Every structure is written in C-alpha cells, then in structure tokens.
C-alpha cells in the first residue's frame, strides 16, 4: 500500500515539474518577441514623426537639429559586411573543401578543435589585432599601392590619409567569421554520401571533378545557407569593426573611406546625450533595423540548414 502511494506522489512530482519546466520552454520564443516589441515601442516616437522612407534613405544625421537619416549607417554596415564576406568566402570554401575532401584524417583531427578554439577568441582581441596590424597595413601599403594602380576606379580611390577604413573593417571581419564559415561548410560537405564520392572516383573522375559535379550538386544550398549565417554574424559584429573602421557618418564611395556601421553607432552614442529629443528613439530604431535584418537572415539560413543536415546547426 505504501508503495503505491509512493508511486502516486512520484508521479505527481513528475507532473508538477513537467508543468513548471513547460513555462521555461516558453522563454526563448518570449524573449525574441520581447526584444522586438521593446525595440519597436521605444523607437515608436521617431517612427511616428518621420516616415519610414525618410528615415531609411535620409543621408543627414544631425540629432541636435532633429535630422535622423540612417542611410550612411546602413550603407556603412552593408559595405563592411560585403567586403568581409567577399574576402572570407573563397578561402573559407576552399579550406573547407580541402579539409573535407583532401586532408588526411590526422590533419582533420588537429584542425577541427583549433577552429573551435579560434572561434572562441573575443571580438575585442580581433579588434586589437586590427589596430596593430591591419590598419597600418591598409594605410601604408594597400592604400598607396591600390589607389596608384586602380585609383581611376572609384571603388579604390583614396580620399583620406589613414588606414581606418572599410577595407580594414572588412579584413578583420573576414578573419573573424572564417572559423565559423569553415566549420559550417565543412559540416555540410560531410553530409554528401561517401558512396557517391567513391562511385565517381571509381569511374575515373578526378577529385575536383567529383567535387564540382557530384558534391556541389548535393551541398550547394547548405553552403549558401552557411555563408548567409556567417553574414548575419558579421552584420551585428560591434567591437572589432568599430575599432578599425573610422566611424565617420558618411555614405562611403570607396573601400578606403571611413564608415560608421549601425552597431558602432549604437555602441558609441547610446547611454549619453539622452536629453536630445528623439535621440534615444533613433538609436533604438538603429537596433531595430539591425535586429530585423539579422532575424530574416538567420531564420532563412537556419531553415535551409535544418532540412539539409537533418538537425539544427549549433
């Protein structure tokens, strides 16, 4: 008799715990909604006063005079991210291919943990590296050389004397997201069935032909999703970029121009100058723009990777 009552109490305990933890499982979704709602509510004053188009396409940022044009910051974010991703993707894809298709097992065993360790290095350390190495390199070597040879192309024109520029930000970003992109694309490549590889090689194809005609067919969506995921990481990256990109509110025209990405705008100004009307709403509006872009990118790439890997990417 005692036994069964014991069982009943245990089952009751199980039930209550289960209900309690169910509440915790609501937490992640609630948090996403809470962040979005909080940012919308707090940036509402500025959304109410100006039209969305005015805010997104305005190029003048003078909070003291009530002019809030986000375009320089949005453009800056896109430029830095684009340069970073363009620089990162080809070497990262090739490295992932090398690791997945060519490298010996021992190389893989060494490289994989190393990538995890490198992915753990804090962004501020990448920023320090950027300031010490990349900024002088871009300012003293790349800028004179490239603007000499390619200066007639507006993209490479040199309009300012320092290395604090989009290119520096892009290089730092590229190095920063590369462990991540390599890890995801490697994982995706490994989903291609070994039989296909062996079959293709057995028919006399070279390894590169196998990759091009067999492996890519299978894994292209996943590779793209991995790159998009890396891009969304790059979008929100704050400290490292902010330390090397110059932070000048202008619409950039060349990779040697300084830029002022959205995260840097928030980090540099939020918490101060709250007395200026609408300033704080404008900065939270910047956070909202960032959040919306990242949410879209993330959701799309996560869904593709999920279908491909049969599980979520961690």
């Amino acid at each position, binding site marked *: 008799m005692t036994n069964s009552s014991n069982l009943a109490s*245990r*089952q009751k*305990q*199980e039930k209550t715990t289960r209900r309690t*933890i169910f509440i*915790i*499982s609501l937490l*992640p*979704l609630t*948090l*996403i909604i809470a*962040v979005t709602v*909080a*940012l919308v509510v707090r940036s509402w004053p500025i959304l109410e006063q100006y039209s969305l188009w005015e805010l997104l396409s305005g190029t003048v940022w003078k909070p003291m005079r009530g002019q809030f044009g986000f375009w320089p910051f949005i453009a800056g974010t896109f430029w830095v991210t684009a340069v970073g991703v363009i620089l990162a993707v*080809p*070497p990262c894809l*090739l*490295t992932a*291919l*090398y690791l997945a298709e*060519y490298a010996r097992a021992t190389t893989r065993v060494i490289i994989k943990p*190393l990538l*995890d*360790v490198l992915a*753990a*290095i*804090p*962004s*501020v*350390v990448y*920023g*320090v*590296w950027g*300031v*010490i*190495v990349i900024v002088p390199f871009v300012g003293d070597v790349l800028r004179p050389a490239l603007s000499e040879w390619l200066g007639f192309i507006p993209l490479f024109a040199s309009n300012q004397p320092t290395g604090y520029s989009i290119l520096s930000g892009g290089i730092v970003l590229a*190095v920063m997201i*590369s462990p991540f992109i390599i890890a995801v694309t490697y994982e995706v490549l490994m989903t291609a069935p070994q039989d296909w590889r062996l079959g293709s090689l057995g028919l006399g194809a*070279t390894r590169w*032909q196998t990759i091009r005609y067999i492996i890519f067919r299978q894994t292209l969506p996943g590779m793209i999703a991995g790159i998009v995921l890396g891009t969304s990481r790059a979008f*929100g*990256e*704050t*400290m490292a970029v902010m*330390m090397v990109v110059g932070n000048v509110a202008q619409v950039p025209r060349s990779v040697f121009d300084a830029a002022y990405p959205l995260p840097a705008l*928030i*980090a540099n100004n*939020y*918490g101060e100058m709250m007395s200026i009307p609408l300033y704080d709403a404008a900065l939270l509006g910047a*956070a909202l723009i*960032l*959040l919306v872009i*990242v*949410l879209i*990118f993330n959701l799309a790439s*996560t869904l593709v990777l*999920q279908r491909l890997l049969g599980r*979520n*990417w*961690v």
Partner: protein
Amino acid sequence: MKFRWQRRHVGELIARILMYFSFVIVAGSLALILWTVLSKGLPALTWDMVSQTPKGGFYLGKEGGILNAIIGSLYMAGGGTLVALLFSLPLALYLETYLGESRWGYWVRLSLDVLWGIPSIVYGAFGFTIMLALGMRASLLGGIIVLSLLELPIMTRAMDEVIRRMPRDLEQAALALGSTKLEVAIRVVIRQMMPGIVSAILLAFGRGIGDAASVLFTAGYTDRIPTSLMSPAASLPLAVFFQLGTPFPEVQQRAYASALILTIIVLVISLGSRWISAQVGKYSVK
C-alpha cells in the same frame, strides 16, 4: 597505360594549389593574430597588471593594474553563467526527455537558434531599455542579466546536442525499472552526460567573458572592484577597448597586455571544455 595530361588534370592541379593556398592563408592569419597578441602583450604584462586596481593617473600611464576588470569580468560572466544554467539545464533536459522531435520541441530549438544569432549590441540596448524602465542604473546585476540572456541559447543548444548522444538503452533500462521520466532525467541523464554538460557551461562562460557590446551600457565601468550587485563593474574587454582608445603609448601597451590576459583566459576555458567533453562516457556506465 601511360599517363597523359588532360584538361581535367590541369583543373585538378589548379584546384589543389588554390586549396593549399587558401588553407595557408586562413591558418596563417589566425596564427598571426595569436602571435601579435602574444608578442605585443607579453612585454607589457607585469605582476602589477593582474594584482592591482588602477591608481590615480592610471589612464595617463601611471601606476596600477586591471584587477578591477579581471574580477569584474569573472563576477559578471560567472553570475551570468549561473543564471543561464538555472534555466538552460532544465530546458535542455525537457527538450530531450519530453519534447524530443515534437512540434513544440522544433519551435523551441528554432527560437533558440534565432536567439543565438541576435547581435550582442542588440541585447545590450534591450537590456538597457529594460533597466531604464525599472529605474536601475548600470550595475553588476545588469551585466549579469544581459550576459545570461546572451548565454542562454548557447548553453541550452550545446547541452541539447550533448544530451542527444545519451545511450537510449540506458534510459530505457531505467524506465523499465519503474522510474518516472523526471527521475531518469535527474539521476541518469545528468550523471551520464555530466562532462558534456560541464563543457557546455564552459563554452557559454567563455562567450560571456569575451563579450563587450552587451555590457557596455548595462554594467558601466569603474576603477573599483564591485562590492555589491548594485555597484557598477568593469570588464576585461572594455578595459582593452578603453585603454586602446587613449592617446598614451604606455596605456596602449597595457591594452595589449589586457588583451593577452583575456585571450589566455578564453583559450584555457575553451581547451578545458574540449578536454572535459572528451571525457564523456569515460567514467560513466557504458
């Protein structure tokens, strides 16, 4: 049969050269980072740096160290990790034990993945608005809460992946003996998967201690070691950032040393977590 060069062999050769080349570039630039931090930081690293708080004129190049930032970072990341653990361990066990591959489980995992991708500056801005609404000032507590939000998805998803590797037969044996699912989760799964769980905790801690953008507004910065949850707290990444921003070479040297300290802490944690996760199943029932 004699080997004859064909176009495809040239393609293979080019592809192979490009791959080696990019492998070297990627590995080289990552090695360059470690080398830069080491070679710049080591000469500036003194015992005073890690054992003293900033004295008067520290930011002009005078005496002192960054003990305030080291302690502040450890408090903040430690506190954030503890708070995140309170939610993520039950959540990860729940995902595995009760939700499994169900529809709700899918949604919870998806939202965790999306949360993981939200930039830390957005968490920082969000945390600060909430603190303003509650009338809180920048403080250790604010930093802990924001870091716990940041760490929650990382820790939960890492644990979830570990717990998934739990041997099914062990779970079923315990169920067959009449345990409830809750008892299996607490007495069998946690014990069996302890190394993996610890490694997930360390992973989240490492992410938390290195994050600057989220604690920028929420924790503030101070030269003193925080004495209560309500006092502002310094952190290592911000110490690096602020010191590098000064125009004095001596102070910039210290920024390099601080970056080295931060890197060492993070690398030790990361390697430790790898070592521990390799122990999964070593001391538990096979």
